[in-house]
């Protein structure tokens, strides 16, 4: 099993390189970083443009550019943006912003999604099941671009009703907090800005996972071993949780991983709506600036997230299911 996981990890590193290379190549072909410079009025001299071209390595073939960039990455240097900022400086701050949002969102989303899915399965064709099914489909059918503003509206209504401005929904912090305000105030500050975007993510996650968990649980509810567990003397409820839920979680393991990957990809919208300066927003900015290095860096980040979560799901799968531990 250990060997299997190591081999998987090596496979994933190769996949990361391939994904990043493709993204790098595609953006290098389609982007023209010099266009901004050419549009300057009065037009800069040809020598200046040529100098910029050499600085950005645009005179070299794409694979060579990729190797140059890749070598830097191995040393922890992700290159510079077209505006001459070091990417590495900004990278970790943005990764922190994104992960704070997504990890919290997915953790709460999975926990609630599983609970609601199980509850709907146990109460199949009863009121709770109908309500949760209805809302799941409504949320799944609503794009984040609509859902985000809707949650904002609700937050605004809550603020109005309580007569406070506690819930915030633009940016990550106000920047008005005193430096010596203490950790509690700092925590409160972050929390105020975190709640609304997190709720937006959590809603989507619940809708997604609860549907899968419901059908996985329904499969298990009709199974013979659950009947055996009850025949042994477990109450219906204990049998459901100890034998049923434990088994119904197995097919979810794969889903958790790729759900996280999808979330990070979709994070572009969530971050933009709430004006969070995370990786998603950076990708949008990078494309606007015709910036290959930023695009490739974000791609690498997403690939690492997707594949790492895929790897974690393999580990999780093995922990949950003794049948595949070999």
């Amino acid at each position, binding site marked *: 099993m250990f060997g299997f996981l190591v081999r998987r990890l090596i496979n994933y590193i190769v996949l990361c390189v391939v994904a990043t290379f493709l993204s790098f190549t595609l953006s290098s072909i389609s982007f023209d970083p010099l266009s901004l410079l050419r549009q300057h009025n009065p037009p800069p001299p040809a020598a200046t443009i040529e100098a910029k071209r050499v600085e950005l390595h645009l005179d070299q073939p794409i694979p060579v550019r990729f190797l140059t960039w890749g070598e830097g990455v191995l040393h922890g240097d992700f290159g510079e943006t077209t505006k001459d900022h070091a990417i590495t400086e900004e990278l970790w701050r943005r990764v922190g912003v994104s992960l704070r949002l997504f990890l919290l969102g997915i953790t709460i989303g999975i926990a609630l999604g599983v609970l609601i899915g199980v509850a709907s399965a146990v109460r199949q064709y009863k009121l709770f099941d109908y309500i949760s099914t209805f809302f799941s489909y409504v949320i799944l059918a609503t794009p984040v671009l609509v859902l985000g503003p809707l949650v904002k509206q609700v937050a605004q209504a809550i603020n109005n009703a309580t007569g406070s401005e506690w819930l915030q929904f633009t940016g990550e912090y106000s920047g008005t907090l005193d430096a010596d305000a203490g950790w509690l105030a700092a925590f409160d500050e972050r929390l105020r800005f975190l709640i609304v975007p997190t709720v937006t993510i959590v809603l989507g996650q619940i809708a997604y996972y609860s549907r899968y968990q419901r059908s996985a649980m329904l499969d298990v509810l009709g*199974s*013979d*071993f*659950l*009947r*055996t*567990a*009850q*025949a*042994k*003397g*477990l*109450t*219906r*409820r204990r049998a459901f949780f100890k*034998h049923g839920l*434990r*088994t119904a979680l*197995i097919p979810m393991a794969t889903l958790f991983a790729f759900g996280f990957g999808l979330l990070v990809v979709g994070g572009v919208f969530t971050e933009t709506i709430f004006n969070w300066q995370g990786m998603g927003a950076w990708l949008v900015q990078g494309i606007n600036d015709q910036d290959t290095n930023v695009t490739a860096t974000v791609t690498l980040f997403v690939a690492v997230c997707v594949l790492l979560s895929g790897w974690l799901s393999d580990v999780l799968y093995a922990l*949950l*299911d*003794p*049948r595949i531990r070999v």
Partner: protein
Amino acid sequence: MSASEITLDEGLLDGAGDGPVLEVADLDVSFPSESGRVHAVRGLTYQVARGEVLGIVGESGSGKSVSSLAVMGLLPEQARITGSIRFQGQQLLGLSDVQLSKIRGRRISMVFQDPLSALTPVYTVGDQIAEALLIHGRGKVSKHAAANRSVELLDLVGIPNAAARAKAFPHEFSGGMRQRAVIAMAIANDPDLIIADEPTTALDVTVQAQVLEVLKTAKEVTGAGIVIITHDLGVVAGFADRLMVMYAGKAVETGHVNEVYQQPRMPYTLGLLGSLPRVDAAEKLPLVPIKGQPPSLTDLPPGCPFAPRCPMAVDDCLTEEPALSEVDSTSGHRAACIRSAELAATEAAADEIEGVDASNAAAIETAVEVFGAELVAEPKAALRPRTERPTVLGVESLVKHFSVTKGVVLKRKVGTVHAVDGVSFEVREQETLGLVGESGCGKTTTLMEILGLTRPTGGNISVLGKDVSTLDAKGRKAIRRDMQVVFQDPLASLDPRMPVGDVIAEPMQVHGFDAARINKRIPELLDLVGLRPEYADRYPNEFSGGQRQRIGIARALALEPKLLVLDEPVSALDVSIQAGVINLLDKLKAELGLSYLFVAHDLSVVRHIADRVAVMYLGKIIEIGDVDSVFGAPSHPYTQALLSAIPIPDPVKERARERIILSGDLPSPANPPSGCRFRTRCFLHATLSDSDKAKCIEVEPPRESQGEDHEVACHFARTKQVV
């Protein structure tokens, strides 16, 4: 509390001592469904005494499983249950799930049908048994003690090396071992009642014999009353004390097991007995088919529910449903039939012919007479000796190996599964060869190799005199016209979106028949298999299992083949339906001069239908010959064990039999034992001297003649009568 209530309580306490363990009275269970309420159990009343074994027999949909799930309180919530279920005097109906959970597993326990899915896949077997002890131990049983006890229990039910095996997960156990583990769980808390719902149905016959032994042990150890539910009259014959036959949610006959088998007083019971092919039948008896199918339980018409299928039905039968009434005032034998006295008279007449003895031959004779079953006359060509008839299918030293590979990108071979390892047999014209063996013995692989018509890994297959390895695509198509197949699962083998007429027409279209000829042939074929020609427009889901199998046979016959390959054609059918299909196959063979290769695990069916039989074990034929020699004088220890494991539906005979119980499971075909492949489980091998043992280990026994048309592959073959 008033005085009268006190006496009532005392009476109850007394009753708990030596009264029945379980008393079910007027039990009704119904479920809502789209077509109305399904009355699955209707007014069921029965008792089980301490240490008594009650057999409940019935076909699918008779309500036998539902009634016992009601006792356990394991029916789904939407079930409506009325009546009374008293366990040791305590009323179980109306108890909450929490109250029932204190009784379940401690005082009443249950063994289910499918051992493969009955255990939770994610916990170890030992943990699951220990759980049964811990739930009811209320903190007094330590985890350590429960784990130790679960090892003892596994040992008791015959799991070798129990301490190590307790740490294994269910997927590491074979089907038979899992069922033993479930039984271990059931007896863990020394219950007073064990309900076994079809405990051996999913198992191979030798494993079934092992599990029945374990159940007997369980009964001795716990002294519990046992309710065993089955559709197999053979299984209960040797095990049950009393029998209850169920039909359409009701008990239609109950009584001591001997009386029910010897003097059945309800035509349904009689029909069931008569419909079973017998492995102990020296001469071929006609099988009794029960026409029609069980009624729908949503809207039962008044009158006896069996009347539409009953050959003895009179007008009175349709007015009122007969109550279960005493047939014999002394023994408690009861039947629900207004004409049971007439059955007694027919049987008395049969007794005069058969001679009164302890067997149930007279009952079978009565069944044949009442239901008017007839033996199919043997075709004339059968009179010619078989050596003079041409060979339609010849298989010589057939080998099929599957490679076991590892790795995804760079596949490398890590082993070989010897699925079929040198199998030779031939099927002559108008002859039926039965190919039998347990699951994993290679009989299906052999069949698939024959149907594939391609060059095998090794050996030769010739169909109608043509070697298949020399065939091109055109030649293969021509041969397929003469060799057709009938599959096991009649539902899965028919396209649900095709009307039956199209299903039957398809092979003819493929072989270029013109439309006029096809349209003429469809009604002919339907008529041939006993279906109405107007059924051609209906879809497969409108038919019952037996009818679907008839459609499958009609499709196979469309091209007028010479050879039919039948893969377990009746094993998915209920017994009363099965007899009709077997009779049909018999009739078709005689009328159309067909040859059959009949693959089956049910040796009783094979004895009835086949002329010759080949017994397979781990990819080899270990005994082959005409049916009477192989069944009457089996010479290979495996054949003897296999035959002795088959239960006979006659309690007196069954109890008197000495059973050979094989130890363990089939070895892996990826790593078969050296020399004789059967030696690891052979009871004969164990009794041999060391030098003889060495011969078994080193030399693979060749197939040697044991008499006219009887070959055996055993160094120390000796005949032993087992049925």
